């Protein structure tokens, strides 16, 4: 495969990664919580798309729009009832809570759907030619949808009252309380948006990803790697980290002999370890705790 074509494939995957990681990155950046259940919300979104596709033939991109409000509510309620209770406590507690959640969600899904792999086969699963390149239709659509959602999220954070409140709470929690914000409501809304977006990513990726109850941890590891590469809580950083991971993963699977597609997971791990060893605070000092001195 020519290099430029390989690079293009990497970029397409990377755009999706940049979008997939947003929920993880923003929850960490705003609340200082490492959401170990991140991948499970991708999984939930994927099953949502699969179930709607099987039952009514609903397109996964439509499901992505539908799953957002549903998972927004789930994220809001989970934060309100559970995570807000431990958000002021040491990081380890919320980490364990989310770890427990991730295992519970995966096992509930296994009970409901069994551990069998599922797939969504959409009619437009082929590819098209453009300027001498071959573009896989689904991945291209995901890429542009991801960019559009990132832009929408950016505008939301910059210009709406809630968006500004989320940024303010991330930058100075005490000051946010001082001006009268109900910080727990801001956190709940943040979690709602983040988990909604994460499930959206899951629904969108359903047609190109084998779906199983235990697909989650792979996405959580990728989210860690992307955050280490691109930094916390910033959309451009997420995109940059996603693109680096997507490109490295794709190039390695194509050019290194004996390295099959299966090594993709290991690549995230190796990148993560590499970044942590060389720059423990992350490439763009993204892996700091949110509060100074914390």
């Amino acid at each position, binding site marked *: 495969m020519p290099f430029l074509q390989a690079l293009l494939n990497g970029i397409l995957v990377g755009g999706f990664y940049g979008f997939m990681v947003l929920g993880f990155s923003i929850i960490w950046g705003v609340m200082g919580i490492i959401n170990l259940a991140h991948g499970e919300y991708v999984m939930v979104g994927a099953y949502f798309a699969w179930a709607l596709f099987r039952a009514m033939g609903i397109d996964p991109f439509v499901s992505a729009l539908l799953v957002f409000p549903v998972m927004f509510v789930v994220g809001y309620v989970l934060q309100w009832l559970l995570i807000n209770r431990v958000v002021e406590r040491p990081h380890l507690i919320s980490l364990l809570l989310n770890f427990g959640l991730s295992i519970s969600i995966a096992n509930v899904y296994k009970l409901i759907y069994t551990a069998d792999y599922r797939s969504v086969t959409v009619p437009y699963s082929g590819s098209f030619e453009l300027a001498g390149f071959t573009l896989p239709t689904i991945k291209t659509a995901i890429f542009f949808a991801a960019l559009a959602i990132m832009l929408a999220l950016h505008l939301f954070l910059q210009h709406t*009252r809630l968006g*500004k*409140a989320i*940024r*303010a709470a991330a*930058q*100075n929690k*005490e*000051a*946010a*309380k*001082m*001006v*009268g*914000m*109900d910080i727990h409501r801001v956190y709940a809304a943040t979690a709602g948006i983040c988990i909604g977006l994460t499930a959206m990513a899951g629904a969108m990726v359903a047609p190109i990803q084998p779906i199983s109850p235990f697909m989650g941890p792979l996405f959580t590891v990728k989210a860690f790697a992307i955050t280490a590469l691109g930094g916390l809580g910033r959309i451009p950083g997420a995109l940059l980290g996603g693109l680096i991971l997507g490109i490295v993963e794709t190039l390695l699977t194509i050019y290194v002999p004996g390295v099959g597609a299966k090594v993709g997971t290991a690549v995230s791990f190796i990148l993560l370890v590499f970044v942590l060893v060389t720059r423990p605070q992350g490439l763009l000092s993204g892996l700091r705790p949110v509060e100074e001195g914390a």
Partner: protein
Amino acid sequence: MTDVAARPTPSPQVPEQAPLLEIEDVYAGYGGDDILQGISMEVYPGEIVCVIGPNGAGKSTVFKAVYGFVNIRKGRVRFDGQEITHARPQEVIQAGIAMVPQLPSIFPQMTVYENLEMGLFLERDKRKIVERIEYVLELFPRLEERRKVMAGALSGGERRMLEIGRALLIQPKMLLMDEPSAGLAPLVTRTIFQNIQRLNREIGLTVLMIEQNVRQGLEASHRGYVLELGRNSYQGPAQELLHNPEVRRAFLGGR
């Protein structure tokens, strides 16, 4: 020296009237032992009152108790005729008290203007928000010049102005300021105190401030309170405290 139990003398400018803020025998803490062990204070309309005391005396805790960040176990707080002992911060703001806390309270990656917008977070009327921000920008021309600059890029003095300006947006009847001069160069400190006095004169702002910078703080104030170990120790007109031998020995480097 006025006795602790005695009613404080109202400042000369202010005629005899009801106190705006009344803190009455307040006990409060952070879950363990009480940090405040029976603190009382009164602030009259139009006054600037300065609170001094050694590190850890509980000065900031008094402010946090008034603002609803720390639970009051015993005692009461009244403001403008209204009981606010157990009010939440949102309710305290609505009652008309603004606060500039001891720790930096700006949002560094938001512009000066956005920081000001956040100061009116509880206000929904967009037109009112714009009007009030323009009013504060008129009070602080330096902020007007820097309205599009990220707050994190401001100098220490400018940040403090931004914090004070933001507190004024809610058109408070009273402003609580926790160490407004902390970390500022002497010249900047003077500007900040001048601004506080100007606001007191021009818009009749009532101010209760905590100061480590005892001399300048008292000089800018009408009255003062000295706190030690969570209790009142001295109180009186600022000039009197400045000349009190014990206060001088403890806080003004002797003589």
